[in-house]
């Protein structure tokens, strides 16, 4: 068990955004989390990264309780998030953004990784010296993903990685996610493109107004009537 969440609660002021959530992710597993707008998906990821405090409950990573660790320590443990809305360092160049992704790995030269990333997403190479903030929406999304990969995550938290991407790229991203999984990275994937997410996921969770209401294997959820109606538009 790489990640274990037990009875996790989280608030924004008086708003109870996450209600005793229980969730587990095994080492090497790809788990999808689906839910409507405002269900609390982003909140869950933010609480996992430590940028939003948990009100109660326990988060265990690799057997250790990390509920009270600060974000920096969690990143050091290898918990890496691709945040909603991309959150780039706008005025800094694309390459600086990517290098900063490797910040926690210290001063070692991540040039080889950078090169691999450029192979994977050629547009990054083209735009490497441009301020990240001036890129198109989809290009920025790729920078955000690339930056997270530079950190060599153990647990990758993806918050809607396909948002704003052209169909071709969506396919590429999902392929990349699968490849990462094959390389041993554990992934928790939040996606509005529930169909694609559940298709590649080992298991999935459904969250509604802050509560986890359903969990099953990916294929089972895909054929679940409730899921089909509420999230797949079928």
């Amino acid at each position, binding site marked *: 068990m790489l990640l274990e969440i037990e009875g996790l609660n989280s608030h924004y002021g008086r708003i109870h955004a996450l209600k005793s959530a229980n969730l587990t992710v095994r080492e090497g597993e790809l788990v999808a989390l689906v839910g409507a707008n405002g269900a609390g998906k982003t909140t869950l990821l933010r609480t996992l*990264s430590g*940028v939003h405090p948990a009100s109660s409950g326990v988060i265990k990573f690799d057997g250790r309780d990390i509920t009270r660790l600060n974000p920096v320590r969690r990143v050091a443990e290898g918990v890496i998030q691709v945040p909603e809305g991309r959150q780039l*360092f706008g*005025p800094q160049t694309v390459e600086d953004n990517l290098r*900063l992704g490797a*910040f926690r790995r210290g001063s070692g030269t991540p040039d080889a990784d950078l090169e691999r990333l450029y192979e994977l997403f050629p547009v990054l190479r083209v735009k490497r010296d441009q301020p990240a903030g001036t890129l198109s929406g989809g290009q920025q999304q790729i920078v955000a993903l690339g*930056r997270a990969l530079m950190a060599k995550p153990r647990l990758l938290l993806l918050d809607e990685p396909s948002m704003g991407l052209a169909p071709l790229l969506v396919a590429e991203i999902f392929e990349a996610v699968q490849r990462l999984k094959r390389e041993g990275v554990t992934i928790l994937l939040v996606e509005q493109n529930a169909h694609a997410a559940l298709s590649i996921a080992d298991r999935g969770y459904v969250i509604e107004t802050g509560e986890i209401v359903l969990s099953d294997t990916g294929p089972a959820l895909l054929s679940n009537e409730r899921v089909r109606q509420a999230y797949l538009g079928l």
Partner: protein
Amino acid sequence: MLAELLQYLLSGLTIGAIYALAGLGFSIIYNASHVINFAQGEFIMIGGMASATLTASGVPLPLAILIGCGGAMLVGVAVAKFAVERARKASTVTLIIITIGASIFLRGVAELVWGKDFKRLDAFSGETPIQLFGASLQPQSLWVMGCAGVLIVAIGLFFNKTLTGKAMLATSHNRLAAQLVGIDVKRVVLASFALSAALGAVGGAVVAPITFSYTEMGIMLGLKGFTAAVLGGLGHGPGAVAGGLIVGVAEALGAGYLSSAYKDAVAFVIILAVLLFMPNGLFGKRGTERV
């Protein structure tokens, strides 16, 4: 005629270098947190007062400056830790008001510690003016300009070439994202305050022989430093230096050729004119936010 002009230029450059040093301090903190630290002037004051009083009681100058720097750094870290960091979610204006509060507080403490009178610090390498084509230059001016020069290069390298420097910048651009890549944003902000406090203190020490040091010396220098930093483009080190020199020279020429009373006005008219055509200062980055 030429000697007169040269004299004004030299005085302007000296004063300008002082402003430049103050402006650099603003830029550093801005680069780490987008906070405008109105207590920057007080760091300068601490440096000036510490070196003046310590040397007066027999401490050798380099040691006195070092102690001043250390003291200023402690104060800077305290301001960052107990005030700025705690109000992290507050708006920029609120943070500015906090630093104003800090500056009033520090001035009050300084008055208790050092008293209200002016302190004198001997020039580092004598007071015999250097004669240049009929104009004279104080040796201390060279110290000021030299310090400004060295520091701007060091700071430029730091922010543009080191990962730590880039991490500082990143923190100011997007604190959330900085946390998510593992940057300890609190430490970054503390470090930036420590760094600019040290810088301010060195500045205070080298300018003290020219301006005297007193507990209120930071007010004017702080204001002029802010001016220099904005004129050059906030966060841009060489810009702050250029801004400082421009303000200093404009003042000296204004005092020389127009009227001493309007010398500050001359500087501000120039600044307004620059901002009209370059809304982000001389070297400031243009907007990188898209819709």
